[in-house]
């Protein structure tokens, strides 16, 4: 697929292996590739905690027309990213899971809530700095509701 137009509009993006790495304008980029390159399905959002490099969000898109995959990578250092629920409704599921396990706040998504963890749980289990301390080990639902 020809991404020349894409790189001329969104400056500062680079192609690394099979991933497009973007620094900003997450919402606009996803919106652009959906409308201009017929990437019609967001297969999943993968979050990876790269410690000092921030938390990386990999948006995996697919085009059922061209039968092609696309990975878009966006790293955040302040635990915030813009929500793309208005573009892909399936992102609601992914964003909620990432909020629960990585503590990323998706700006524009008002329905984020704890999914697997208890509502008043402290910390985000898939972050690398998460430790299973005494408080968490002795957690009792009845004491904390």
């Amino acid at each position, binding site marked *: 697929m020809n991404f020349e137009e894409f790189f001329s509009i969104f400056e500062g993006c680079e192609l690394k292996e099979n991933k497009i790495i973007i620094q900003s304008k997450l919402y606009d980029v996803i919106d652009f590739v959906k409308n201009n390159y017929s990437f019609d*399905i967001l*297969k*999943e959002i993968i979050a*990876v905690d790269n410690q000092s490099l921030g938390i990386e969000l*990999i948006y995996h898109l697919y085009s*059922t027309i061209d039968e092609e995959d696309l990975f878009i990578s966006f790293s955040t250092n302040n635990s915030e990213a813009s929500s793309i629920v208005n573009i*892909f409704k399936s992102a609601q599921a992914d964003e909620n899971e990432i909020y629960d*396990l990585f503590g990323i706040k998706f700006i524009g998504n008002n329905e984020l809530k704890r999914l*697997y963890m208890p509502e008043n749980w402290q910390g985000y289990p*898939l972050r690398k700095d998460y430790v299973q301390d005494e408080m968490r080990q002795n957690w009792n639902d009845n004491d904390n509701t």
Partner: protein
Amino acid sequence: MTTTTLKLNLGPQHPSTHGVLRLLLELDGEKILSCEPDIGYLHRGMEKMAEKLSYIKYLPLVDRIDYLAGFFYSELLCRTVEKALNIELSDRVRAIRTMLLELNRISSHLLWIGAFLMDLGATSPFFYAFREREMILSYFEKLTGQRMMYNYFVFGGIRKDIEFLDDVQKIISILPEKLHDYERIITENPIFKRRCVNKGILEPEIGLNYSITGVNLRASGIDYDIRKNDYLYQGFDFAAVILQGKDSWSRYKARILEIKESIKIISQALDYLKKNEKLEQKHINPLNIRLPEGEYYQEIEAPRGLASCYIKSTGEDRPYRLKWRTGSYYSVNLLRKLLVGEYLNDAIAIAGSLDIILPEVDK
């Protein structure tokens, strides 16, 4: 007169939720105004555990992601690791894996047919479907020692060579006539049709927007089957089942047709395996598996939609990050949209038709 809406908790222990799913419904009379799925009752922390365990220790766990189709997730983990280590499978291993995956797909679809009809209030098909599924599970038990959590695939191949091929031959010779019986009882049954035809319409663009894959999407007319490009299935003659109906009935029909396609694949694999070649596979030391630094991604067509595995490795003996994508997780999210405007008694039929299984949702 003042009217108020009613909040109704469907689940987590409702028999039609196939596990523990809680749907918070807002009702106006019998009509559903909104639906809010609440999940997490079966969460086992599969992704967190992967970061703590070496690959070989993690392998027996992954069958439990979907306990009705355990082979698929061990296959997925094995394939991702094999991809990272550049291991090519021999034709015989490929045929064995394909055959077992398709048998597993049939057993999973059979359970779904039984459970779905049970949701609709028909009890007999449940017993018929379980009778046929039992043949497959007995075969798996004979072969692997386990009925549901097989742990039979290993990195680079399979644990031991395939046996008892006559049993498989018997299964695929019996199944078509049993399917014919199901179709006679169920497919054109007027009560069944009234509950399923034109109910739970999933428009293709909505399906794509909600990331629905697998049978549910193919029953809405979109030709997307990973198996076409999967090297495991190269050389097998089969067709992806595409239906245009978009409703619950099409999703049912698509699964019946898919079982027939699976039987085709199995009989081809069986013909190949009967030639009795010697099993060739590369032995790798399971205690010292280290993936080279990098990111690896693999996907597979599981019975409930696209399943994928992402591994990021830093060169250690365990993943730095491992992520699963499962089909049911997105099907649950779709309920927010699909159930709105429907009646409560249809809600059970519609949710059932999507083939949601909760261990896959919660991981």
